């Protein structure tokens, strides 16, 4: 193959040039890149917002912003990180790019719908920005938009909620596309137990996206209707029940955290065997645990509401279900660690980031059990402990997996190799900064510091002050990794087809891939993680 055949040079459908070749493309790989740049923009923006908040909290009282600005900041940080980074990041970038390739297909099943999803994503993001600079000020409700405050707040909640609605449509249509692609575009020679684990995890995620997103859609529609018509469906003095809003909201938004974490687990399941030169331990267990997490994770939403006033029976049932989710999650961690055991480890930036993932995700999972148990949850509810737990799973988990995926697939996506040293330095700085940032928050939460306040009592000052330094180190590490990757684009496109010794189909085609992915028909292995060929080649 020559460089001219790569998807970066040839358009799909053929013959388009200039901006049309990108903005009207049907190529899942180009759409993956377009998502990549949009999502990186949002990620960096929300990271900066987070850093500003932590700077505010480094000293008591007003440091750099007042309470209103702080409330808007945590709302924006949450909305962007959940709806514009966490949910779309791995499925929309890497899922779009690699799901069809891993299935041996030339594109997703509905390429034009895929393009529409991207436009909905951009439109929703634009709407979110527009909502900031119109109306009576920034939304200040937090990303949960709890009633009755979201209905009475003077901030421009309606537009922000509409933006989230549009982003939900985009995410749901991507899920629909993936499920159909999984069933109809898979190479005929590839049976269900020959599918790479990343694709399996995306399949499980796609179902959660399809199942849960309409619930948040209708909830957001109701919030907007309430704001304009004040029907009173959630207002007690008009006969409504605000608790129902919380149920509907979490019915989507708890599964949403599994939408965020499941693809991340899929990424780790690809990287760990590739750099251990060893078949994944418990392939079937990982497949079934992905499906189990998708199912059980959809049934635990009310564990966010222990202190909202539920019956003891509900609390008991939801607590029990929450504990059940820990089982498949632990199965995965066990499988990853066992894969490395007696493997031939080749250290590399993606592998290092995956190790960080396992460590940080495990802490996140264990602190989740503290919150899942109703008794201990009452003590730490709405404190910094919750914030720290959530970030251990979302940033320590999905965030690090996202960076691992970037470093793992970057050579394949762009055909360039990046420098290892800045990547390692950035990863170490991010991991160390992460721990020094969020462990103090766990302790502060245990001591009773509530979340979502720009100020605090004097006894919390030391912890908050120290956490600020961790935040700066973390952000330095993240940005260093990103810049290292972006600067690598100036390098010549000389990445080999298989720089890491991966065994899934994307490593059997050139880097960057040709426009229809496979120039010859793909060679489907009996088992996707069969390293015997890679190992025998390296022994020569």
């Amino acid at each position, binding site marked *: 193959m020559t460089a001219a055949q790569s998807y970066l040079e040839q358009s799909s459908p053929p013959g388009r040039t200039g901006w049309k070749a990108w903005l009207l493309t049907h190529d899942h790989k180009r759409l993956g890149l377009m998502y990549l740049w949009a999502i990186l923009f949002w990620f960096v923006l929300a990271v900066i917002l987070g850093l500003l908040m932590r700077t505010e909290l480094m000293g008591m009282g007003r440091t750099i912003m007042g309470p209103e600005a702080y409330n808007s900041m945590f709302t924006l940080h949450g909305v962007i990180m959940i709806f514009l980074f966490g949910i779309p990041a791995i499925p929309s970038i890497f899922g779009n790019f690699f799901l069809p390739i891993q299935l041996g297909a030339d594109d997703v099943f509905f390429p034009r719908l895929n393009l529409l999803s991207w436009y909905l994503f951009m439109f929703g993001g634009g709407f979110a920005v527009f909502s900031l600079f119109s109306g009576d000020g920034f939304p200040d409700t937090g990303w949960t938009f709890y009633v009755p405050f979201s209905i009475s707040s003077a901030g421009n909640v309606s537009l922000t909620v509409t933006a989230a609605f549009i982003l939900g449509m985009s995410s749901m249509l991507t899920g629909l596309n993936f499920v159909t692609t999984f069933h109809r*575009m898979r190479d005929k020679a590839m049976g269900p137990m020959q599918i790479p684990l990343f694709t399996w995890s995306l399949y499980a995620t796609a179902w959660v996206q399809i199942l849960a997103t*309409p619930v948040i859609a209708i909830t957001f529609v109701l919030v907007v209707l309430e704001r304009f018509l004040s*029907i009173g469906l959630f207002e007690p003095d008009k006969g409504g029940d605000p608790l129902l809003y919380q149920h509907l909201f979490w019915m989507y938004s708890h599964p949403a955290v599994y939408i965020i974490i499941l693809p991340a687990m899929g990424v780790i399941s690809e990287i760990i065997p590739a750099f251990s030169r060893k078949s994944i331990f418990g392939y079937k267990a990982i497949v079934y645990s992905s499906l189990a997490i998708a199912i059980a994770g959809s049934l635990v939403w009310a564990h966010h509401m222990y202190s909202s006033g539920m019956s003891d029976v509900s609390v008991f049932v939801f607590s029990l279900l929450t504990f059940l989710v820990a089982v498949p999650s632990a199965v995965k961690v066990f499988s990853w660690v066992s894969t490395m055991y007696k493997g031939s480890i080749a250290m590399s930036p993606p592998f290092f980031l995956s190790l960080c993932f396992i460590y940080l995700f495990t802490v996140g999972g264990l602190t989740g059990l503290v919150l899942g148990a109703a008794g201990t949850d009452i003590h730490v509810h709405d404190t910094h402990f919750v914030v720290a737990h959530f970030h251990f799973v979302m940033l320590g988990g999905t965030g690090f997996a996202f960076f691992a995926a970037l470093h793992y697939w970057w050579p394949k996506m762009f055909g360039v190799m990046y420098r290892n040293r800045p990547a390692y330095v950035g990863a170490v700085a991010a991991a160390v900064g992460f721990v020094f940032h969020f462990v103090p928050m766990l302790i502060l939460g245990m001591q009773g510091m509530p979340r979502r306040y720009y100020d605090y009592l004097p006894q919390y000052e030391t912890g908050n002050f120290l956490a600020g330094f961790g935040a700066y180190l973390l952000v330095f590490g993240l940005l260093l990794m990103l810049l290292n990757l972006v600067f690598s684009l100036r390098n010549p496109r000389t990445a080999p087809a298989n720089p890491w010794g991966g065994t899934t189909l994307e490593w059997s085609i050139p880097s960057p891939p040709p426009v229809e992915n496979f120039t010859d028909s793909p060679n489907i292995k009996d088992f996707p993680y069969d390293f015997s060929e890679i190992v025998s080649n390296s022994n020569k």
Partner: protein
Amino acid sequence: MTTRIDATGTRIGMWIFLYSEIILFGGLFVLYAVYFYEYPELFAKGGKELNRIIGSLNTVVLLVSSFTVASSITAIQRGKKGQAMGFLAFSIFCGLVFVVNKYFEWGAKIHHDIYPNSATLQDGEPGLNIFFGLYYVITGLHGLHVIIGMVLLTVSLILVLRGRITASRYALLENSGLYWHLVDLIWIFVFPLFYLVL
């Protein structure tokens, strides 16, 4: 590699989409269930104020239109273009009748000062306010779906006219038909919940 032209895949995609629509309405039905449990008498009282004759008429209209949409698909499969267009035009007409009926129904209610945030509902009992709030939200959202369905059927009609939908290629018509059946199906649940609640 697998090729993309595959009617089964298109149908899978459509069914998944319809499923998401059902969940969308499902959220509202959950609200209905909870509030019905809370205010059973007031819901019955509210239901008596709705016009059962118009409601039944609309049910019949939608059921008939579902039948004619299905007939138009069969007609196109047999290559009878004129027949298919006739059936489609009649279905769109049924949709129009439904929307016009709804317009008069809503108009009469609003005339009697029953609409969200109206003085009667504000000062009345909270259960009635919730009942009519749900009535307007659910029938409003359903009405919106009727209109979207009519647009889809109109597009199908134009494409049949232009010969783009034929006996060998009718996925769009079939999917528009599925959407129309969904609109019908949801109404089958909405109708008893509001008009026949005792």
